[in-house]
């Protein structure tokens, strides 16, 4: 059989199986990668070269940092403190919890954010005797939206940043302001959808929430102090990393090393918390895409796209945005983004486009697409599973009814934003 056809079959099978989640996604990605080598489409050397270690290093560094900082109780402290600002108003409670989730998710990965925030929300809701569903769904949506704001917020951004040499500040300046607008609009939309639940009076029971003592959430004040200093130092270096000539992975790994140094935590414990499975998933996918690229499929797809959009930057940008948003509602956004990167590089090489708007479109589409269905992002599944353990079942349809419109509206607003800012 022709190598191109073999490559196409392996590639499509990888994408389909990863999205079906019946078999572990890392095993699928590694199997795909292995098949490319066994079928001699790639040799081992080429396969290893295909792995983007800037992405892997950045992910690892952030995982180490987050695993140390989350032990301090800082995030719970913030969540409780900010909830208290609601002062017995259910919409304010929704607004503050959802917004803090979005903001935290722009520096933490989405799943960690959800694991930290959702249980606190459950505790608050149980004390207030209200349904946690609107609040928790809003937090899930906010985690996907907030992650779009920064280079480190969501894996697609890490991949895009590394591939397109976009810096931490590029993301902050180009995406964060728009994402903040989306985050502010989100609770209003959720309120429209959950009118009945959002009209409950929680003033009387509110004193119970006031009794939550956020200070007690800080388990180790000394560790907190040290890790905060190390963390802010890392963020500061992130702001200037391009000017300093440092790659993002260097900054994240330096931050992780600094935190390990000052925290005195045994690296063996911390390194166990690194999600090795996710890292190997990335490595497998990088190899799969390199295989597809080698047989010329990526080039073929890129030229088709250029033919369709007629070398029109506006059309290309909007097409990438919408196709990404809809696709990533159903398929894994990491595999999607890794596949799209070489396509966009090719489009850039074949045309005279300034590719930046296209990269932003890919980021917005891939990240915001995560809200479309509950299988679209890991944070959605984690949040829905926590609710399930509380006896509150959210079906695919329940999630879709609110998540898909939120995805469509956010992609629509993104189109307007991209058009006005870059394409006019």
């Amino acid at each position, binding site marked *: 059989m022709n190598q191109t056809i073999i490559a196409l079959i392996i590639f499509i099978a990888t994408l389909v199986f990863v999205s079906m989640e019946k078999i572990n996604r890392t095993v699928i990605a590694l199997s795909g990668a292995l098949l490319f080598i066994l079928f001699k489409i790639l040799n081992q050397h080429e396969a290893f070269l295909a792995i983007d270690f800037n992405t892997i290093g950045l992910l690892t560094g952030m995982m180490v940092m987050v695993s140390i900082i*989350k032990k301090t*109780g800082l995030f*719970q402290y913030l969540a*409780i403190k900010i909830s208290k600002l609601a002062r017995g108003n259910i919409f304010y409670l929704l607004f503050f919890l959802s917004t803090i989730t979005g903001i935290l998710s722009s520096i933490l990965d989405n799943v960690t954010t959800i*694991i*930290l925030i*959702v*249980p*606190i929300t*459950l*505790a608050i809701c*149980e*004390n207030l005797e209200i349904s946690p569903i609107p609040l928790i769904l809003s937090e899930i949506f906010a985690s996907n939206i907030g992650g779009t704001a920064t280079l480190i917020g969501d894996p697609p951004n890490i991949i895009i940043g590394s591939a397109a040499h976009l810096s931490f500040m590029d993301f902050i300046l180009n995406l964060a302001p728009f994402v903040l607008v989306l985050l502010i609009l989100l609770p209003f939309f959720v309120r429209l959808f959950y009118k009945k639940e959002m009209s409950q009076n929680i003033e009387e029971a509110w004193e*119970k929430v006031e*009794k*939550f*003592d*956020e*200070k*007690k*959430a800080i*388990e180790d004040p000394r560790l907190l102090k040290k890790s905060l200093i190390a963390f802010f130092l890392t963020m500061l270096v992130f702001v200037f990393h391009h000017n300093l000539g440092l790659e993002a992975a260097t900054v994240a790994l330096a931050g992780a090393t600094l935190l390990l140094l000052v925290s005195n935590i045994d690296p063996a414990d911390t390194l166990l918390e690194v999600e090795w499975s996710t890292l190997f998933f990335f490595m497998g996918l990088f190899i799969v895409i390199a295989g597809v690229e080698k047989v010329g499929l990526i080039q073929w797809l890129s030229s088709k796209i250029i033919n369709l959009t007629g070398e029109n930057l506006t059309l290309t940008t909007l097409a990438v945005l919408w196709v990404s948003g809809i696709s990533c509602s159903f398929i894994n956004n990491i595999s999607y983004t890794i596949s799209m990167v070489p396509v966009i590089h090719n489009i850039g090489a074949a045309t005279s486009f300034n590719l930046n708007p296209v990269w932003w479109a890919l980021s917005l589409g891939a990240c915001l697409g995560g809200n479309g269905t509950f299988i679209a992002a890991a944070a959605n599944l984690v949040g829905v599973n*926590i609710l399930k*353990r*509380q*006896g509150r079942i959210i079906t695919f349809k329940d999630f879709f009814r609110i998540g898909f419109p939120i995805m469509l509206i956010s992609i629509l607003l993104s189109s307007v934003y991209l058009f006005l800012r870059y394409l006019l």
Partner: protein
Amino acid sequence: MLKIKEVMIPDLTSVSDDTPIKEVVKIMSRQRIVGLPVVDNEQNVIGMITESDIAKACLPGYYKELQNPSFLPDFDQFSLQAKKIAHLPVKEFMTREVFTVEEDTSRTEAANLLFRKHLRILPVVREGKLVGILTPSSLCKNAMEDKRNK
């Protein structure tokens, strides 16, 4: 070879699966035991209810999800949930797949089961019917008093 029936505690305290949790807790604190076999009308062991099963059921649902519950204000949520389950029957909380040993099992075999599965009470049965219990301390006591290894 010493059989388990010579080591076991011939205690037949047990409950039926429709006993309210409130009663179970009373028996446990009166008898100072950490678990009770659940039996049917013919004394067949059909389950096991332990202190930790009940404690878990008393916790509000979100409690297990919280990484650090220290900020929670008071005992209210715990007692509310405890009161809720007090009148519910044992069958809602018991473990159905229980380990038991036949009375003529060897001590080694019973000790293996007890320690490997971290059981605190192991019902001893004769053809499925409860005849006693075995606890880690009863087994250790017997081992310490074993005359053959002096």
